[in-house]
């Protein structure tokens, strides 16, 4: 499980960084999105992974060490919302840049 998650995060990050360094604005925004998915998974992973276990505590005294840490899951929710808002905002700027410069090159002077 850890291996699958680690490989997943690694692939997402690699693609994200590569796209981030591309010259077209659309590639940059997709790269940033992939990067933020990787980061969200990573934060999630920091709460430790546990499979085949109940997600919520049952009544009575429980051994908390058997459960994943819920705090990173709460953090991920915040990070997802913020990341989504920022992507939307960046998309608007990207369209404005496209309209003003007439090209989708990140420097505004394409080709």
């Amino acid at each position: 499980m850890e291996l699958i998650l680690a490989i997943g995060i690694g692939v997402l990050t690699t693609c994200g960084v590569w796209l981030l360094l591309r010259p077209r604005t659309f590639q940059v925004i997709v790269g940033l999105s992939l990067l933020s998915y990787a980061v969200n998974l990573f934060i999630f992973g920091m709460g430790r992974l546990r499979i085949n276990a109940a997600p919520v505590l049952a009544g009575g005294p429980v051994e908390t060490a058997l459960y994943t840490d819920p705090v990173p899951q709460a953090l991920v929710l915040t990070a997802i919302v913020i990341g989504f808002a920022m992507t939307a905002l960046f998309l608007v700027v990207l369209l404005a840049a496209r309209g003003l410069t007439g090209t989708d090159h990140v420097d505004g002077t394409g080709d």
Partner: protein
Amino acid sequence: MNFLRDHLVILPILLPMATGALLLLLNDRARRLKMLINTLSMLALLSLAVLLVQRAAGDGGGAAVPTATYALGNWPVPFGIVLVADRLAAVMVLLTSILGSCALIYSFARWHAAGPGFHSLFQFLLMGLNGAFLTGDLFNLFVFFEVLLAASYGLALHGSGGTRVKAGLHYIAVNLAASSLFLIGAALIYGVTGTLNMADLAARVPLVAAADRGMLEAGAGLLGVAFLVKAAMWPLGFWLPSTYAAVSAPVGALFAIMTKVGIYALLRFSMLAFGADAGASAGFGASFLLYAGMASIAFGTVGVLASKSPARLAGYCLLVSSGTLLAAVGFGSQGVTTGALFYLVSSTLAIGAFFLLVELFERVRIEGADVQTVTIEAFGEDDDEEEIEVEEISEAIPAALAVLSICFGICVLVVAGLPPLSGFIAKFALLSALLNPTGMGGAEPIAATTWALVALVIFSGFASLIALTRTGINTFWMTMSDHPAPVRVLEIAPVVLLLGLCVIMTIMAGPIMTYMEAASAQLHAPSGYHADVFAGPGGAPVERSAP
């Protein structure tokens, strides 16, 4: 007044948020009303900041008062979010509100009408800045960073135009990538220590097992990179000069404090987590910061000498100031931090004033430039109706050139660090602390890096002097225009105010330096911070198992 005393710490965040939300509801055409609300809120924020500084400094008796803390929702401390207003945070909030007030007054001359939503974005930026300075929680710091960045993206594009959008695009992309690093760093630190509360973190870092220490330091390093992008360290700061040269003048002045947020976060975090009490991790990254700061000073100095336009020059001055502060943080002695804090306040005020002045320069410089052409540039040519609405809100001042050149002269003295103004006092305090690590008369040898830093700081001041003098000559002695465009009282007043504060800082240097010394002592004693946070409201002792 009990309400005010209990909730003082959170009010500098709530007030701009409420004002910004209220301003969103009003139509953009109700400009006078918006100006009025914004000004009133700004005045209230200013008085709150003064109260906060008074509270942090104690009631004049000199006795140590516990740091004001505020537990959000009254959750017990290590679990809930806590706001901490120690001396440094209070003075940063005050600096923000002063700079904000001046930028706001300046924007009333015409910039506030150059696009929609200016007033709301302005207030949200202040909210993010105050929140970032006051928070004592790592993830909450991320949230406030995002709030201030989101507002700054809007403000950077304020006034529109190709250059701004192009520079804004780079600025947003760099900062979004930095935010990802911030999150990874914060998550790693949480994964190792099991806490996000900075005071709790300070107590837990020495207890981290040797096997996990690498993870912790990797997390701290990633977090540091995110802060360094904000602080515009070389080579992470290439976005700064072109972005800051493209934004409108009042926004540029307010942005002058945004690099200081990065410095503040670094200072706070490195002192708390990797201070002297941090066990095996003590001083992690300090020497890196020292060298990185020196590299930033060198790069900024070259940029200062090479830049042709005054706006880029202002951006590079900001880089030099950032570099100096980074190196001082890396040096890590209490005396140096004192000097650095004084330098931080003085240089931020002066560079803020410089950003405001730059636009006025452009106006006296360009032949035949008048308000009309500048307005067209600001509004876009197709928007004739808007133009008329920029009424003569304030009178043009006589002898504009003379007033401008005097303001510029004062600005040069502070930025370059020449006597007799506050820039000199700041650099003197910094350099004397560097050369006398154990107080006056210590006889131990001084390291080569210290000499290099001293030389760099002095040379960067000299280079700034050369570049600024050249700009002055080009602006005031080679002006081709016989009838320079009018400069309005509303535009020159905030510049005079900011520079006046630098003069006041020179006269009141004694008490201010005493305050900074206490702030620096507080920073270098993380155990005191820890004790105050846990003794404050919501800080009831809670049984916890080790991570």
